């Protein structure tokens, strides 16, 4: 297999492949120039070293992707697909091999306002799609990850991303009705999943024709196939929206759980987003404000940022009233304004929906101090576990403080984001400097922290390379599951060429358990 780190052989094979790919896509859209490789050598993280692909290609059609896959199989060259390249976990770079930049495939092919679905090429960004849809009174509901200005639909599906709208509409796979995917097999097989597997059917639904093979390509971090088109569920865009903020009277994560549960029971559909900003983070945000108020605000606990939506103003008002009753009852919370800590933030009465909040809110935590970048550890937990999760995270940080990168800022959650049913994301991480001396330190801690989270039952997304490997290292998979996983991959990728480092599936002969790592205990078990 060509394209592995340290591989200096096979240069002529790479050159042959390059020539053949050039015949497929034309010379403008494929390159092996060093400065191009350098430009594609990183994602958004401080831990991975620069990695240079051998070939970078920008295919324009599914047929071209399929032809590239055939060439890669012919010469046994590894491939990594890349969407917006805003990946936080080393998922869309490769040392050697072929990097497929899929952002040229960025067209909306169909918006069906009658049957509420759309067909898009997977290289379109969330921002571009959402902007077109909203102007037509439609929405995907989920607006994509915090990097939605540059992140693509394909990347969002590959990472099962959450994001703005997730409280009501769920994760990216929840809005996916099927995909067109190029399998990484020697034939470059092209499949359509969901109801679109019925060659006579429009892609209007996900289930019914066959087993849910769409799921095979959701959250696969580009290991099972190269998604070229997505069929997405649409919903009418509720025209009435509002935002409210509440601050807990005490810093109590048990209370956070109780309130989330009550909101879920009593308000339901009216909540488009429930985001809890933990107490330390609201303090941090206050400190980071460019224009601080003269009077120092009293910040007693975590802040709930709640976005509402409805099809009627009267209904919206009722939703707000219901939430007020829950949040303000017995002084558990008080109404809060972000303006209290940052004069640049609008008052609630002026609240307006905007994509900039959805796509830039998290940027402030990705690089709190310029030059540092966060090693993300975003993971889902049951809401009943929020208190324990917070405690475990702090216990971990305290125990292993000395092993973190220099001056690292570790946040168990920059926000706790309520998802459908009873789960929430701890959108957390710790910072490191993107310098060669600090990278290994950050990487080691990253794996270790994720292993700890996996072992307390956390379910990560944005798995990429670092987190998918750490899941395996934590021994999360039973032997039967690991075998099943590898067998499934072998069916679609017999030469093990697509994103081979992820999940430590470097080949099909190794036992995944060889990567398991023991870690020193750091806390009592949850619930004690």
């Amino acid at each position, binding site marked *: 297999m060509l394209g592995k780190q340290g591989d200096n052989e096979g240069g002529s094979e790479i050159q042959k492949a390059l020539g053949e790919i050039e015949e497929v896509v034309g010379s403008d859209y494929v390159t092996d120039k060093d*400065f191009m490789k350098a430009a594609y050598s990183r994602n958004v993280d401080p831990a991975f070293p*620069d990695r240079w692909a051998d070939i970078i290609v920008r295919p324009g059609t599914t047929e071209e992707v399929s032809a590239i896959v055939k060439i890669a199989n012919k010469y046994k060259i590894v491939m990594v697909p890349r969407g917006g390249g805003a990946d936080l976990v080393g998922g869309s770079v490769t040392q050697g091999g072929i990097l497929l930049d899929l952002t040229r495939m960025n067209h909306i092919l169909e918006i069906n306002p009658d049957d509420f679905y759309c067909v898009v090429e997977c290289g379109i960004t969330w921002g571009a799609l959402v902007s077109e849809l909203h102007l037509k009174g439609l929405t995907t509901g989920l607006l994509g990850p915090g990097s939605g200005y540059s992140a693509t639909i394909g990347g969002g599906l590959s990472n099962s991303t959450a994001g703005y709208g997730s409280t009501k509409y769920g994760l990216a796979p929840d809005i996916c009705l099927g995909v067109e995917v190029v399998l990484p097999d020697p034939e470059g097989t092209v499949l359509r999943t969901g109801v679109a597997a019925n060659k006579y059917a429009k892609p209007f639904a996900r289930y019914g024709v066959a087993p849910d093979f769409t799921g095979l390509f959701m959250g696969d971090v580009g290991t099972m196939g190269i998604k070229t088109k997505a069929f997405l569920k649409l919903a009418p865009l509720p025209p009435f929206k509002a935002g409210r903020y509440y601050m807990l009277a005490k810093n109590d994560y048990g209370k956070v759980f109780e309130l989330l549960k009550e909101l879920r029971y009593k308000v339901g559909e009216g909540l488009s987003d429930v985001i809890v900003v933990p107490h330390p983070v609201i303090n941090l945000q206050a400190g980071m404000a460019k224009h601080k108020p003269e009077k120092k605000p009293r910040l007693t606990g975590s802040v709930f940022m709640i976005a509402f939506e409805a099809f009627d103003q009267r209904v919206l008002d009722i939703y707000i009233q219901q939430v007020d009753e829950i949040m303000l009852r017995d002084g558990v919370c008080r109404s809060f304004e972000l303006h209290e800590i940052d004069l640049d933030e609008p008052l609630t009465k002026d609240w307006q929906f905007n*994509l*900039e909040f959805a796509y830039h809110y998290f940027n402030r935590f990705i690089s709190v101090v310029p030059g540092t970048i966060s090693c993300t550890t975003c993971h889902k937990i049951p809401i009943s576990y929020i208190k324990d999760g917070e405690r475990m995270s702090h216990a971990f940080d305290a125990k292993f403080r000395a092993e973190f990168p220099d001056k690292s800022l570790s946040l168990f959650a920059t926000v706790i984001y309520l998802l459908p049913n009873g789960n929430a994301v701890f959108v957390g991480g710790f910072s490191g400097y993107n310098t060669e001396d600090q990278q290994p330190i950050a990487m080691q801690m990253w794996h270790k922290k994720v292993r700890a989270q996996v072992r307390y039952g956390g379910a990560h997304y944005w798995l990429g390379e670092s987190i998918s490997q750490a899941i395996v290292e934590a021994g999360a998979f039973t032997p039967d599951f690991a075998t099943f996983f590898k067998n499934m991959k072998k069916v679609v990728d017999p030469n093990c060429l697509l994103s081979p480092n992820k999940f430590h599936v470097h080949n099909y002969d190794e036992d995944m358990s060889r990567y398991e790592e023991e870690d020193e205990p750091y806390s009592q078990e949850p619930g004690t």
Partner: protein
Amino acid sequence: MAETDTKEKLKHLGKLEKDILQCISCGDCREATDYTKNPPKWGVCVARENSPGFDPFYGRGKMQIIRSLWQGKLDLSKDMANVIYQCPTCNACASTCYYGIDCVQYYEALRADLVDAGCGLDAHQAMNQALHEKLNPYDQDNARKMDWIENLGFDVKRAGVDTADVLYFAGCTAALLPDVQAIAIKTASVLRKLGVDYAVLGDREICCGSVAARTGDRSTFRAIAEKNAALLRESGIKTIMTSCAGCYRTLKIDYPGVLDDWDFEILHTAEFLDRFIESNGIQLKNLGYHVTYHDPCHAGRHVGLYDPPRRILSKIASISEMKTIKESAKCCGAGGGVKKAFPKLALDIAKSRLAEAEATGAEYLVSICPFCNRNLADAAKELGSSMKIKDLVELVDEAID
């Protein structure tokens, strides 16, 4: 290659060292489409949209190349220059960057290092050589800058000979290229009709040096700036007005960066006329035209000049705005040395912009930059478009009795 060796070659980037690692590679500068922004943003980088589109064609890729160069992982090359220069330095990436990285400053420093390493583009080298020798980038006898003045049919004051409140700095494009000379002529006409006390330099006018600054020939730029400073100080003028967006940015932003005591007031014609019309209660005739307005990047995103031209236009015509305007406006594609070295790319970008203009249904596409004007007119010609490409002053001249 050793990191220290490369750093020695990166004299200009080295001056920005403290921020070189700031770009986290998020990629918002690629596209960042957002209908909720005011004004809405429909894409960012016109160079990427009209090129093969690999990362180095837009901000993130360039910033990662710069980082790799700085860390000694890459060397400067002609191949690299060939892509780095396919950027009109329109500043859309910087205006999108959440972290406020002044990307264009980095691109221009990289260009300067490429030039110093002998990797600059031949087309730019010839242009800057002409600038050095003939004081204009069009390789013409600078005395021809008298042509438009001689065609006026009335006398104008000569800076350095006569005293005046304001110097009208025509810029090389309007002064030397017949297809856009109307901009200089109509500016003079408008100023005369308004009774403004102004002077011109004529054949003594030296290029502002923008082309050298944008393409990385910093020694030529500095030499030109110093020549201009001496000439302008000698003229006794305090306010310089120009109808060129490129000159405007250069005189206003770049000169203070390289010259001590550069204390002239720099105004764009649109800015000057807007103030003059407002403060003197000048009545403009409504021409009944249907127009749309193109924001030149070097006046708009680089300096923030958005409203004065619109205020004037709204008095004389009905305006339909394009899909992308002001901070979100798409570039015409001519700047940053692109039209000189990559005329097809410049034309392709201009065609896209023209399509936006045509979608408004307007009959006039108005701007305030001879260089944009020229490139958009080239696109209109190529497409056989009936859109009339005009400078604001041409319409103002019509609107003043």
